[in-house]
């Protein structure tokens, strides 16, 4: 598992986000495009790619992409 891959996957899923714009320290919920739909997109992506089913609370407990990545690794 590599965080750079995860970031690339996120950028592909978030159509409005430009390539190479997300960083491990990005607070994903502060992105101007962020909506409840994006929360579902993240849950779906993580489920498809990593076979980890995040809950709404899991997402809320994470600040940055790096936090999210650490949580996925822990839950795998």
């Amino acid at each position: 598992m590599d965080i750079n891959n995860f970031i690339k996957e996120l950028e592909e899923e978030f159509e409005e986000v430009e390539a190479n714009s997300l960083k491990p320290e990005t607070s994903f919920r502060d992105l101007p495009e962020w909506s409840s739909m994006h929360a579902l997109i993240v849950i779906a992506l993580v489920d498809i790619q990593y076979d980890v089913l995040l809950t709404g609370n899991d997402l809320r407990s994470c600040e940055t992409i790096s936090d999210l990545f650490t949580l996925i690794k822990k839950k795998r």
Partner: protein
Amino acid sequence: MSAVIKAISYYLPEKTLSNEQLCAIFPNLIPDDIVKMTGIKKRHISAPDEIASDIAYAAGEQFFEEHPIEKAAIDFLIFISDALDYKGPTTACILQDRLGLPKTAGVLDSLAGCAGFVYGLSMAKALIESRQAKNVLLLTADMPTKVVHPEDYELRMIFSDGGAATLVSASENESGIGDFVFGTDGSGAKNLMTHYSGARQPITKEWLEKHKDADGMKHGMMKMNGSEIFIFTLKVVLPMVKELLQKAKMEMGDIDLFVFHQANGFLLNVLRRKMKIPEEKFYVYLENCGNTVSASIPIALKEAMKEGKAKKGDKILLASFGIGYSWAGTIITL
């Protein structure tokens, strides 16, 4: 003796609600975004005096017009809906009379939502294989738009009224409807519920007054926690599909077509990707009619047959899931 799906017809109310119309009501929405999120371009809206059993009746009449099947041959009628006519009598009794079905026929109502069609197939198969009936007419119809609040754009984007008539008949030499997998988790009931629609919450004067701008919401009001429903679906559908394949001693590649409950485009696409099902084997019919609850699978099946994507002899995996929580699946040979 096996039970086989012989024919399907469906009916959609005439009035429609397009994305453009929705966006005119809700300026925060954009037509292209609605298509991207839901896969839906229009929904069908029943007339104010048209209820679920009227939709089922229209689907039934359509069925006998389209197929050379005598009404006299029907010996059992099952009506499946989230919206029955009365607390009594059974709505299927009224439908037997309206459709002119034989007085010798047995009838049954079943209150069920998104998983309703697969449940109906299971009942029809049970009746046939136990030699209690030979030709079961399964009517699945719903009117979700009547319980969606006019200001609830998330639900208005998805739901559509519609009904289907499916004939399940006894056969000596076809494999037909296979084994079933069921699942229930009532702890999720609160996440998708029609409030003020029955004995637990009878409609009050205050309720009607509170919603007077929405015709009193007199049929009740559906509330959905979308993200909870989404997570529930991701949790249960793949294990159900795996169990169905195991029971049938099949692999993913043996299935000719996957037809899931047409909940919404975003969810279906996530499920398809998760299960690595190729797009051409995963049938989606949402653009023209949205989520029609218990009618969604037969409508999609009928369209798949018309398009030649579902052919005689094909193995088709049906998976339904939703309100309850309730889920059910089967593999049919067309």
